[in-house]
């Protein structure tokens, strides 16, 4: 069993509050990704889990045991750092062995552990090299090897891929995922790359300014973002957030959106709880539409929007078309060769995927 519970944890440097009552809890085998922009406190939280930073308030429990006052070595964790932090004067083997040596593990067991880990990571041929003689990806593997041989309850990764080039990053991402499937250890992983979060996580915690905005499965975070911030942070291109006025039409809602030099567009058939419908009818809301939820409308489509494309950016598999809607810039992801800049076009919207936000609190309306 290796659960992790972060219970109303706070961190302050003097008067500067870096983390404000963070609560996260995950089960054995979970892959938790802490996702957020630079400076939001991800590393701080990870260091607190590791025991490298003191905890100002709240409690952290690993496998049910409070670890607030335990030093890192007593927490049964292993950590992989952004800069890898390989000991520069030791060989790869010595790097991997160092922790075991300190724990006075017998030579034979150490050799066995080094062999297992280096086979798993395919670094056996590098064991006698110094870190300065390794490439970025190889260093990354060694750092992971150092963590693996600990057989910890909890793996901690602090932006482990951000120093690699784009291609290698994708490869190593797959590797980490495979490793997780293989070892089944609970992982906490820090990144500011939302694609890494989507691909790796079983649970994502989106953070901003030391506050957890949403904690959920990646697909749920993508489909049902808790607020406008999360909606914009997860997904690329970001979710379009368009101001509109809501009208009740039977049991569904219609969003009325201004379009420059044209009659207002109406997106009908948005499902909403009866209570929310009552509350927001006739009021301003923010409509969230993912770029891929637009499509070129067939002639007969009822709720089609007529728009003018300003810019068209082919990306290969599809084309991004940019246009004005409700006074903001909106991006649609369309099949290739179907959009032309400066042309008028009719677009359909998948209303089942639309998310509505309160225009003041910017939180999701259900």
């Amino acid at each position, binding site marked *: 069993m290796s659960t992790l519970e972060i219970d109303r944890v706070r961190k302050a440097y003097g008067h500067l509050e870096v983390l404000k009552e963070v609560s996260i809890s995950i089960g054995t085998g979970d892959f938790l990704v802490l996702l957020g922009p630079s400076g939001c406190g991800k590393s701080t939280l990870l260091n607190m889990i590791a025991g490298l930073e003191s905890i100002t308030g709240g409690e952290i429990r690993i496998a049910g045991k*409070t670890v607030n*006052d*335990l030093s890192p070595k007593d927490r049964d964790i292993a950590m992989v750092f952004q800069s890898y932090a390989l000991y520069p004067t030791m060989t790869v083997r010595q790097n991997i062995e160092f922790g075991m040596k300190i724990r006075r593990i017998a030579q034979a067991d150490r050799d066995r552990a080094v062999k297992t880990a280096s086979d798993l990571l395919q670094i056996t041929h590098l064991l006698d090299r110094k870190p300065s003689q390794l490439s970025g990806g190889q260093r990354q593997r060694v750092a992971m090897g150092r963590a693996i041989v600990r057989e910890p309850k909890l793996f901690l990764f602090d932006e482990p891929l951000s120093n690699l080039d784009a291609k290698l990053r994708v490869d190593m991402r797959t590797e980490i995922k495979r490793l997780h499937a293989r070892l089944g250890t609970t992982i906490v992983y820090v990144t500011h790359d939302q694609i890494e979060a989507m691909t790796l996580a079983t649970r994502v915690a989106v953070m901003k300014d030391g506050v957890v905005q949403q904690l959920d499965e990646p697909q749920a975070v993508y489909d049902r973002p808790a607020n406008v911030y999360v909606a914009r942070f997860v997904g690329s291109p970001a979710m379009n957030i368009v101001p509109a006025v809501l009208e009740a039409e039977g049991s569904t809602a219609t969003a009325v959106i201004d379009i420059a030099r044209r009659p207002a567009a109406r997106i009908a058939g948005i499902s909403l709880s009866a209570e929310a419908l009552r509350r927001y009818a006739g009021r301003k809301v923010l409509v969230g539409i993912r770029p891929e939820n637009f499509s070129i409308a067939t002639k007969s489509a009822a709720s089609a929007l007529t728009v003018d494309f300003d810019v068209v950016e082919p990306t290969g598999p599809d084309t991004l078309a940019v246009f004005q809607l409700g006074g903001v810039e909106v991006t649609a992801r369309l099949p290739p060769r179907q959009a032309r800049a400066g042309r008028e076009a009719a677009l359909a919207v998948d209303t089942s995927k639309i998310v509505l936000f309160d225009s003041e609190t910017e939180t999701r309306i259900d």
Partner: protein
Amino acid sequence: MSASTRMSSRLAGWLPRIVVAPSLLVVIVTVYLFILWTGVISVTSSKFVPTYDFVGLEQYVRLWATPRWHTAVANLFIFSALFLALSTGLGLLMAILLDQNIRAEGALRAIYLYPMALSFIVTGTAWKWIMNPGLGVQKVVNDLGWTDFRFDWITNPDMAIYTVVVAGVWQSSGFAMAIFLAGLRGIDNSVIKAAQIEGASLPLIYRQIIIPMLRPAMLSVIVLLSYIAIKSFDLVLALTNGGPGTATELPSTFMFSATFRRNQMGVGAASAVMMLMTVAAIIVPYLYSELRSENNG
């Protein structure tokens, strides 16, 4: 969790402070407490040994009434000004010349800098010999036929201080060169290329662009050389022993001879306090700005 692990992790938190404490204590005692102690002695009537009777600023009054101290202070100004100007100028010039893709740069740099490895006592001994009017430079030039040539600064009370300047510059200008050269090497080459493309001549580029960019190096050089100038002691002692008469007395030699040779410990302490205040006035703002910019950067 056990109480003992908690104890040990708390101890671990204090360990760094415990380890650094003895050094801190030593420095607090040998630097700050001793400064204070010197300050206290400077307001007592101490002569051969410290006596702790308060006499106010009497020793300072006596200090500033001593012609010898006035000579020392005047000499310090002459020496510092010339030493700084010449070392900085020469150092900058050599650094710029060395920065022109010179073939034997390593060897030349080593030659300019080796005096810095010598003791001032050695430097003083060597230059004393070179400037000896009877056997040194003067004699060589005289022997070459210029029989009227005179280079007797070292025995001439009006000129002797300049011999200290010559030896000091010889010893320290390489140091200025090293810092300037490091500064030059830190300048982005593309700036120079950009200026060249605009058609600026090399001297102009140096005057208008590069030398202004060396300001941090310049500041370091000036501060460190001032510090060397103020504490120069061995050089004077070895070269002229403060003479002829008191012609090359500096505050540093004044303090030493007042305290250890003339049994005027109170006056010596007062002069030491004056020296310290001069150094602090230069160094403290410098250190403050250096540390601050380091924290911001």
